[in-house]
């Protein structure tokens, strides 16, 4: 429909002055008033001298502008809708609490069968810090988000590798059974701690299954805590250089990137060097292995050969009176901050605690709650370029935050 054809179809509600414009040049329509001082009478007087064709009257100009603006507006709305469709469960935050400034809260992919997280326990940044990887534990999947919260993809699904007697093994490559942690190698491949399948599954960033190790049906090294003493019930995983470090109920097991067993160290107990349900591990560039000795209320560092180096925190007496700020209660996921210090998530203290590379406890960050910047059993954290991603487990979300002074 051309612009010329539109004029006769003007609705009665349109200004009468505009409809009678050619017949009443002396009474300039109000619609023209104030628009670039257009001299309406001159335009009308010269109308007969203009050749037939497209004649851009001010009114037509306005219509064109209105249409253009309308198209732009519709495009904007569509864009916004598409953006929201990408992830309605992510929102920018600007709260601060307990020395933590929230920037982004992600509550799930925002679509699909499970649009929200269910107890995410592990998080990791990609190598360049442009993606966030989330182990959505109860949903048996890994979710990938862009740094701005856009949902990229998910993969996984429930599969049983070690069924009880009489049950059926449903595991196929790529399926998971309670993934509790995730780490990346230098090529951005994801190493997933597949807890109830007693193994580590490796995926490319696009979600392709690459390999699984160790074999959950065979003993590993001198023994491990997998069901029937086979495989490793992995509670945490980290990758540094050419090695993969995994914790189970009481030890650290080291593998090559391809999954070849290298060594293991640690034993059950409370003595120095012994471990009780460690749930966090990070390897430093010099080969030092730092472990969250969770149920012993401490973090321990080991030499590459497995000799204990230092301990941060100490076992809390049963009648606990120490302030959460004075110790560690249940240290779990741990990360290196700028090669200068460590940061450990402590779900029972509801905070993140800084530890020096020599084992000295430092500042504490965070406070309990459900608002952005607050946490409810933070289970894991990972640092990249001043940004920290937190697995805010009982709030069923992850947060991207910065640390600020309290």
């Amino acid at each position, binding site marked *: 429909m051309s612009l010329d054809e539109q004029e006769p179809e003007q609705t009665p509600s349109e200004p009468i002055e505009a409809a009678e414009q050619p017949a009443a040049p002396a009474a300039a329509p109000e619609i023209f008033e104030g628009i670039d001082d257009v001299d309406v009478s001159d335009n009308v007087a010269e109308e007969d001298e203009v050749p037939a064709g497209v004649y851009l009257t001010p009114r037509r100009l306005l219509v064109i502008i209105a249409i253009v603006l309308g198209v732009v507006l519709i495009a904007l709305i569509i864009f916004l809708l598409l953006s929201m469709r990408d992830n309605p469960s992510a929102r920018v935050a600007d709260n601060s609490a307990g020395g933590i400034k929230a920037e982004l809260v992600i509550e799930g992919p925002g679509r699909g069968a499970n649009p929200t997280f269910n107890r995410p326990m592990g998080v990791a940044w990609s190598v360049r810090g442009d993606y966030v990887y989330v182990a959505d534990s109860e949903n048996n999947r890994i979710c990938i988000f862009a740094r701005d919260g856009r949902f990229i993809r998910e993969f996984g699904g429930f599969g049983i590798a070690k*069924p009880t007697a009489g*049950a059926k093994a449903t595991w196929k490559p790529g399926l998971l059974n309670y993934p509790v942690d995730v780490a990346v190698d230098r090529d951005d491949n994801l190493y997933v701690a597949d807890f109830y399948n007693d193994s580590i599954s490796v995926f490319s960033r696009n979600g392709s299954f690459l390999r699984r190790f160790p074999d959950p049906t065979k003993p590993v090294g001198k023994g491990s805590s997998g069901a029937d003493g086979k495989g490793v019930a992995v509670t945490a995983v980290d990758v540094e250089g050419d090695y993969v470090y995994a914790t189970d109920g009481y030890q650290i097991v080291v593998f090559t990137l391809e999954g070849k067993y290298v060594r293991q160290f640690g034993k059950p107990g409370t003595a120095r060097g012994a471990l009780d349900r460690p749930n966090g591990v990070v390897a430093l560039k010099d080969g030092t292995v730092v472990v969250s000795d969770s*149920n012993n209320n401490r973090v321990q560092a080991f030499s590459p050969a497995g000799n204990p180096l230092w301990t941060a925190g100490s076992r809390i007496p049963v009648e*606990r009176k120490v302030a*959460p700020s004075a110790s560690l209660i249940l240290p779990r996921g741990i990360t290196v901050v700028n090669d200068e210090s460590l940061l450990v998530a402590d779900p029972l203290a509801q905070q993140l605690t800084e530890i020096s590379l020599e084992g000295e406890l430092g500042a504490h960050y965070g406070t309990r709650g*459900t608002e952005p910047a607050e946490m409810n059993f933070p289970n894991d954290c990972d640092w990249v370029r001043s940004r920290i991603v937190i697995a805010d*487990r009982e709030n069923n979300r992850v947060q991207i935050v910065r640390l600020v002074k309290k």
Partner: protein
Amino acid sequence: MGRSLRLILITAAFVFVGAMPAFAYQESSSTVDPADTPAYSCPSCHGLESGFSSPTVGPVVDGGTRKGPHGGYGIGTNKCETCHTLHGAASARALLPDITIEGTCNTCHDGTGGGGVYGVIKRRTGEDPAGGHMVGGHTGGKVSIPGGNADGSDLDYQFSVVDEGMTCTDCHSPHDSNTVAPFLGDRARSSDDTTSATIKTDRLLLARPTSSDTTVTIYGSDWCLSCHKGQARGTMTHPVASLEETTVPSTGTQFKADYDHVARLSAYDTATVDPDKGALGQSNLGYVVPEGSGGLPICQQCHEDARDIANDPVNNPGVISSTTESFTAAVDGAGSGNPRFQNFPHETLNVNMLVEPRDSLCLNCHATALGDAVH
């Protein structure tokens, strides 16, 4: 004079109005002076745990073994805030982090940390267990208790949390308050167990579960019978007899003569065979009578986590259980006690929550192939 009086009255009225909220505040009944406690100490209002100021049934368990947030709430403790929060709680229910009791417990008891793991069977079968004391499998309302009535019929009972059916706190006290006396665990499940033979635990079991109208001080048949009353109605239940027979240890009776040969837990290391118990049942590793039962068989002797006790005298004569069958893993010869795989009575695979099915169960005691006495 009149002007001063009016001024005084007006002032008094303002003070009264300003003090109105104080009349709506319910004072704590605690006798502890808050001034004597550190600020924000929960026990100053909520009282102390049993064992600290008012021992009830069970004393607080060995302070060296209890970890986590359960128990030990002395004056000045800050353990309460581990689970409860005044502000920003996810749930109005006891200010907990999850909307259900079960969800709150599973924050730790998911297998990665705390003992007493729940949900393993579903993780390894894909379905909720068919048997066992399930929590979380109900949508609310009344729950049927098998043999819950004294005449042996089932009892439809409304447990403490209406919309959760039966839940964790119906049998356990997360505060370790009013619990049974600590007993030697029937199998090691804690990392500490590998170095000590004397550690006891009460499993946080309530001395009086929700549906019970009796208080039981020790874990054993009587504890089960406090809810399943009909099982104690006097008829013979082999090998557990009546409530009376199990609570009063026999001396010189037929029961004593028979069951004194049943291997039972006399030390924490259940791999040790008690030579005084004769050959009946052989080692019965992992198939034991908890301490305090008087040596008689109890419910838990046959109703336990489904597992292979492995004293199979027919197909495997002379071979007794190894530690790997009771303890799921070992490192350098020490049992790890990984608790992820067994969690009686919540989850068990065999019918009637029996430790083993069919003949294997009987042969744990009646080991005829080995030349033992046949009853």
